């Protein structure tokens, strides 16, 4: 954190303003995207700071920063994200994903402490049932259960939406069949 403070205090105003404009736009977008898939605040902050430092070091003038092409900002942002992650891995400090988007509980959800099936064993059984799916459907179902929608899954796999929908529906049907065979029915999670 210290190097960022020194950096912020020593730069001329013109560069600072240009950096602020570019970085603020990027940061807003990262936050909007991050909310969808539970990025932590420290994820976003670390990434934005890294991008800021990289742009400042590489471009060094307000005009260059404002004129930087989108492709340059894109390469800088992705490269910055990879460096943030490498440093975290080296320090063994990778944060886990947040539970549920923004930590929001399901509407109407009011799990009691003694809910019969709400225990670790149930979660592990469901994990085992997912792992038993055939490979072509398993990754798609995992992505869906992890919070990705069909269009995102299709985009990440380079599939059409109909193909994705078909494999997802078949995979979810297989999963329910597995769970039923294991004695886990609709009432399992209260």
């Amino acid at each position, binding site marked *: 954190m210290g190097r960022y403070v020194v950096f912020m205090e020593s730069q001329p105003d013109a560069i600072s303003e240009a950096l602020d404009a570019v970085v603020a736009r990027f940061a807003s977008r990262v936050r909007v995207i991050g909310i969808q898939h539970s990025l932590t605040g420290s994820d976003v902050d670390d990434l934005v700071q890294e991008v800021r430092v990289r742009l400042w070091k590489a471009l060094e003038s307000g005009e260059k920063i404002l004129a930087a092409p989108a492709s340059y900002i894109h390469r800088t942002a992705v490269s910055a994200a990879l460096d943030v992650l490498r440093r975290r891995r080296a320090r063994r400090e990778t944060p886990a994903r947040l539970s549920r988007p923004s930590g929001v509980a399901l509407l109407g959800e009011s799990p009691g402490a003694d809910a019969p099936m709400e225990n670790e064993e149930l979660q592990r059984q469901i994990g085992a049932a997912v792992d038993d799916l055939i490979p072509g459907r398993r990754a798609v179902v995992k*992505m869906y259960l992890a919070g990705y929608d069909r269009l995102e899954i299709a985009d990440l796999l380079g599939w059409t939406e109909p193909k994705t929908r078909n494999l997802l529906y078949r995979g979810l049907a297989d999963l329910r069949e597995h769970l039923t065979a294991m004695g886990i029915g609709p009432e399992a999670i209260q």
Partner: protein
Amino acid sequence: MSDERLRLSYDRLLALRADGGQDRTACPPIDRIAALVRREEDEDQRLTLLDHVMACPFCQAEFELVRAASRASGEQAAPVES
């Protein structure tokens, strides 16, 4: 069991795995996670990698950070809320 209930349950499973600590010996290197975001590998490799990433709370967080950086700075960047 509804889709939403399945999602909730899977979410709790990932939280359990996160609580279990960081054994990253089976995790792919960062460069492969970046390749996944860029769709650089073939379909079988992407499916295999996603199979792990979507079941690992640490890899999933890493995947999302790279993906967010890419999407936020790309030509098809997500709209900014006014």
